């Protein structure tokens, strides 16, 4: 032992405060699980989780307002807390807060996950009123990973964040109270496919490291100009990285998990996945493809074109054939991932990048809120055995519950991108950025896909308002404060962003103005 000392790393705690707060609250949640009596746990977890998410949001805003946007990576170059990252953090934290209200709201989660479905153990657990309150710390762990994922400044941090984000989600998917086998199947499917995609990402990382000699995004970018003769390593590595990332956003041909998982997972978790995970994953996609591989865009752009077109077309067309409301929304989410990819392709000079980035950020806000709202409505329409998933059960809902059906119709119109909803401005911004980047054919495909998508959204609206309600139709659950707040907030956000989008557009512009730091 020669007693060598290690110089202490410099960690910018203030910059990382939102993330550290979330992880800290998750650890406290684990302690609550360990020491609090069962009947108290939920009443401790809910305020703790909500306060942590709200606190994280406030810290993010404080950081952006007071200290301005930093220009160098933090934590020994591991994390880049730049304008886009702060904006994405804000969206994720707000959407996670809203989803938590939805999770808190009702007994959507299994009483005891380890009890065999249909067994006497399960009955006993339900009779004793057990609840798997571990969902709250798991949710916070996942949200912490989501914050780290789009802010990662090298591939290793990105991989770790990907796992921290995904692992709790795999578990949460399997904890639905009703139709437990479907839920567990979804969980296993998500886990297996997710592990595959992580392995792809890891292998891609190894090959890119072999090419560039570094996994730092900036170093990869500068290696593109200096390293010669090892192109095949780079291309295969980038392809594998792309598979891992595109899986997470559910782009075709890696979309197969989305409908099954969205259908099987507890609806509150589906709302969380459909909104925040998509936001976080797009942040990471942008960082890898713009920061690290920005100078390689001539090579990845044609492939991305194909992926975007395929994603939009598959999402829109297959959605038409769906008869289950959550599956339909899952395919709609796939189509939206395709629309967002047109923004990722719309690169060019710095100004062009800025426009595209701000469009993507705005789209993510608009889509996230409408999605959470849509799934919140789904939780309220119930049959005897749980949620009324089949579309035929939704017939005539407009006559039985006009307000609820009206709000749901409004969310669907926002998904379709009808003017005066938030979806319109989101699509307009992304498509105009793509037109400016000479991707007109892509935009044409996008518009056609939007029209096809509008068909199945409108079909649901027609079903709700213009067909007779069945005699034994589903009941509308009396919404609790949490669900009403979620629906009201999401509807308000969709209206405000659709009628008066300037403040958020400006904010997105500002966040995008400095682009990603390198």
């Amino acid at each position: 032992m020669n007693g060598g000392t290690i110089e202490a790393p410099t960690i910018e705690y203030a910059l990382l405060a939102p993330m550290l707060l979330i992880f800290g609250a998750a650890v406290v949640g684990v302690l609550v699980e360990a020491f609090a009596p069962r009947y108290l746990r939920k009443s401790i977890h809910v305020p703790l989780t909500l306060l942590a998410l709200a606190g994280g949001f406030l810290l993010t805003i404080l950081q952006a307002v007071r200290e301005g946007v930093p220009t160098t990576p933090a934590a020994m170059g591991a994390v880049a807390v730049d304008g886009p990252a702060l904006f994405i953090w804000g969206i994720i934290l707000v959407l996670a807060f809203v989803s938590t209200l939805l999770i808190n709201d009702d007994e959507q989660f299994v009483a005891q996950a380890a009890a065999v479905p249909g067994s006497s153990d399960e009955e006993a657990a339900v009779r004793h009123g057990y609840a798997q309150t571990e969902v709250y710390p798991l949710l916070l762990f996942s949200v912490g990973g989501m914050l780290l994922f789009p802010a990662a400044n090298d591939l290793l941090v990105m991989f770790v964040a990907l796992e921290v984000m995904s692992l709790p989600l795999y578990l949460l998917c399997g904890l639905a109270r009703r139709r437990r086998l479907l839920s567990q199947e979804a969980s296993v499917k998500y886990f297996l496919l997710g592990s595959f995609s992580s392995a792809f990402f890891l292998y891609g990382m190894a090959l890119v490291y072999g090419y560039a000699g570094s996994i730092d995004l900036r170093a990869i970018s500068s290696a593109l100009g200096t390293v010669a003769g090892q192109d095949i390593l780079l291309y295969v590595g980038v392809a594998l990285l792309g598979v891992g990332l595109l899986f997470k956003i559910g782009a075709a041909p890696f979309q197969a998990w989305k409908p099954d998982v969205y259908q099987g997972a507890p609806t509150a978790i589906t709302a969380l996945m459909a909104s925040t995970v998509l936001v976080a994953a797009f942040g990471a996609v942008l960082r890898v493809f713009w920061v690290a591989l920005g100078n390689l865009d001539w090579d990845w752009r044609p492939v991305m074109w194909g992926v975007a077109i395929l994603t939009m077309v598959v999402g829109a067309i297959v959605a038409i054939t769906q008869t289950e409301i959550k599956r339909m929304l899952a395919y709609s989410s796939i189509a939206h991932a395709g629309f967002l990819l047109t923004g990722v392709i719309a690169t060019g000079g710095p100004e062009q990048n800025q426009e595209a980035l701000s469009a993507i950020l705005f789209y993510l806000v608009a889509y996230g809120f409408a999605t959470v709202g849509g799934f919140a409505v789904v939780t309220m329409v119930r049959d005897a055995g749980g949620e009324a998933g089949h579309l035929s059960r939704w017939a005539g809902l407009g006559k039985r519950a006009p307000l609820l059906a009206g709000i749901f119709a409004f969310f669907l119109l926002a998904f379709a991108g009808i003017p005066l909803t938030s979806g319109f401005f989101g699509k307009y911004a992304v498509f105009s950025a793509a037109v400016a980047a000479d991707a007109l054919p892509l935009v044409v495909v996008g518009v056609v896909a939007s029209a096809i998508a509008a068909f199945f959204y409108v079909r649901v609206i027609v079903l709700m308002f213009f067909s007779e309600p069945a005699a034994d139709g589903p009941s509308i659950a009396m919404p609790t404060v949490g669900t009403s707040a979620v629906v009201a907030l999401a509807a308000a956000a969709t209206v405000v962003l659709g009628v008066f989008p300037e403040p958020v557009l400006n904010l997105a512009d500002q966040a995008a103005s400095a682009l990603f730091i390198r």
Partner: protein
Amino acid sequence: MTEAVPSYLSPTGQEIVFLLLGAVAVGAGLLVVTTRQLVHAALWLVVCFGAMAGCYLVLTAEFVAWVQVLIYVGAVVVLLLFGIMLTRAPIGRSADLDSGNKTVAAIVAVATAAVLVTVVIDGFRTAYTPLDPGTGAAKELGSTIFRNWVLPFEALSVLLLAALIGAIVISRTDIRGRN
């Protein structure tokens, strides 16, 4: 990676040992999947992992080599053996260890290996890196982990905690409340 490439015709002792260890690893790996006895498969896995550790050692990554021995040989294989012992898995020779999918599996395995070998050979065709002893030592790695990589390191501990909680959630049935 731009050093002059020495001739392949007079390999150094290091290179010969590396190739031999590689051959042992591949051979043991093949035996793992072809043997008809479950316990033998686990033990061949020890040989395979051990040979890999030897490869790391030759490449001067000594810390990684010992981690390989500790985690894979020590923990993973022992876990496998305990799994065989504690469940009612057949100990002796059993015919049903051969899967009906073995042709397909072999094709997939060979194809994957072919792709990866092609990529690596094509990518590193002329690259040559001299090995400096000491760069893979525990001291160097420790100081980079706790300095440059401290954030991902801590995030990994969070991941482990989350996995632990998840394992408890999906497996324990004997937790009774103190109502």
